[in-house]
């Protein structure tokens, strides 16, 4: 009980400091807004004219909006591993590890921090979608549901990035691996086209890709209004995020060795 209390309390402290950093310098939010704006404003607009992708009664911009939100959240989260390497090089990580803080709290703290940043992406994507006249379901269910999915998705990819950081150990290698992992994860998902139009082997990959579950959940909440699959999406994300946090707590202290 004491351990769980320590984990929850200290995860909160770590996340709180990340929020303070964002408040001191919110310019990061503006720079992070560029990517989703480009995806929606250029890629989405262009492909919506082609009408080559089956979107089950949705406009292509509606279809792609949850995917763009997911992509921007995942790309933010995946580079948290880079911050672990930077913190290792600066000695910050060593200081945290030498304190009486459970390893799991340090992982959950980072996951929660990524979740907070992810939430700012929700606001950016929603505002831009509004500007492009993309019809989204904004309700008392869809907003908290979106937050839950974004926090879980951020958490999973933050945990994954911390594991990668503990294996590759240098910024240069991490940048390379980060690119190699994030783009295939994005393209091997239902973010910008439905899984059904993929080749069979890619459908298998997309169906085990957690990113697909995040997109699916967001799509059912925000545009398709059919939340039947939502508990499954949230359940799967919850389980994989929890498991990856345990693995990450075991692995990432090795980055200092």
């Amino acid at each position, binding site marked *: 009980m004491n351990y769980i209390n320590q984990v929850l*309390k*200290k995860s909160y*402290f*770590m996340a709180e*400091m990340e929020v*303070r*950093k964002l408040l*001191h*310098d919110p310019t990061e939010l503006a720079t992070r807004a560029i990517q989703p704006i480009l995806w929606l404003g250029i890629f989405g607009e262009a492909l919506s004219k082609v009408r080559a992708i089956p979107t089950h009664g949705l406009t292509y911009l509606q279809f792609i909006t949850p995917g763009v939100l997911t992509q921007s959240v995942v790309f933010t989260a995946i580079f948290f591993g880079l911050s672990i390497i930077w913190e290792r*090089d*600066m*000695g*910050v990580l*060593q*200081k*945290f*590890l*030498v*304190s*009486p*803080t459970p390893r799991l709290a340090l992982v959950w703290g980072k996951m929660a921090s990524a979740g907070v940043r992810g939430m700012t992406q929700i606001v950016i994507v929603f505002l831009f979608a509004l500007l492009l006249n993309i019809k989204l379901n904004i309700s008392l269910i869809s907003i908290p549901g979106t937050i839950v999915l974004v926090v879980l998705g951020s958490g999973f990819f933050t945990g994954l990035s911390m594991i990668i950081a503990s294996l590759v150990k240098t910024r240069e290698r991490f940048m390379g691996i980060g690119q190699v992992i994030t783009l295939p994860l994005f393209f091997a998902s239902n973010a910008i086209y439905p899984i059904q139009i993929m080749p069979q082997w890619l459908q298998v990959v997309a169906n085990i890709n957690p990113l697909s579950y995040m997109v699916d959940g967001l799509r059912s909440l925000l545009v398709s209004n059919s939340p039947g699959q939502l508990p499954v999406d949230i359940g799967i994300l919850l389980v994989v995020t929890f498991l990856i946090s345990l693995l990450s707590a075991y692995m990432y*202290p090795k980055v*200092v*060795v």
Partner: protein
Amino acid sequence: MKNQNNAIITVDHLLKKFDSFTAVNSISFTVNQREVFAFVGPNGAGKSTTIKMLITLLKPTSGQVLIDKHNIITDANNVRRVIGYVPQMLSVDGSLTAEENMMLMAKLYDIPGNERQKRIDETLTFLDLQQVRKTLVKNFSGGMIRKLEIGQAMLHHPHVIFLDEPTTGLDPVARRNVWKHLLELRTQFGTTIFFSTHYMEEAEEVADRVAIMQLGNVAAIGTVDELKKETKKKNATLEDAFIYFTGATIQETGNIREIKQLRANERRLG
């Protein structure tokens, strides 16, 4: 193994192997309470690996270490509660204020909520940083940053404070100022200070005892006078003793990563 009466750190046949490479070769030594203990040696001698084991960052291959009667393997969490650590690199967060940096450590060290602010105020006053408590740390000078890091490490009143190259890159005035506060820390709180350094004159000036590491072994240990005496040289310095025991000068050593880190640190310090 029995913890000696006055010893706060007892290292007994500490061994660390990375595959077939022996980084620390079954070393034994003790550090006494309230002692200022310097750890010197060329890069690659095993000092950093030893410190990493003592502060619970790295598991030994074999051997035993007690810190304030707590075993670093079986009782790591209690070891963490009685030690403070200042890494070589500048490890405070520049995008937070001095007070926020301190607050995070106060929370991570479980200082009770009703005591945190008082403890932070006392520490910032002790380090002459009270005036800049609300300033973002990225605007601090190198000396101020180092003092803030010491503040973070002493906030929970540790019994032992470990400092890895604490004054690297600081100018002589800042270096003197940092040591003034560290020695006051010992006077006021009875804190034992364990530090590694490349600066022989620094070890000579402040350390009660010095251990010289070489190729994973403790080549020599003793007071500065005892080590100098071993060289059998008239007017010997600690550097002479270092050369005598290791056969190398400190500047001849260091790998590319360590040199890059050192230079990055110096750049940050301006």
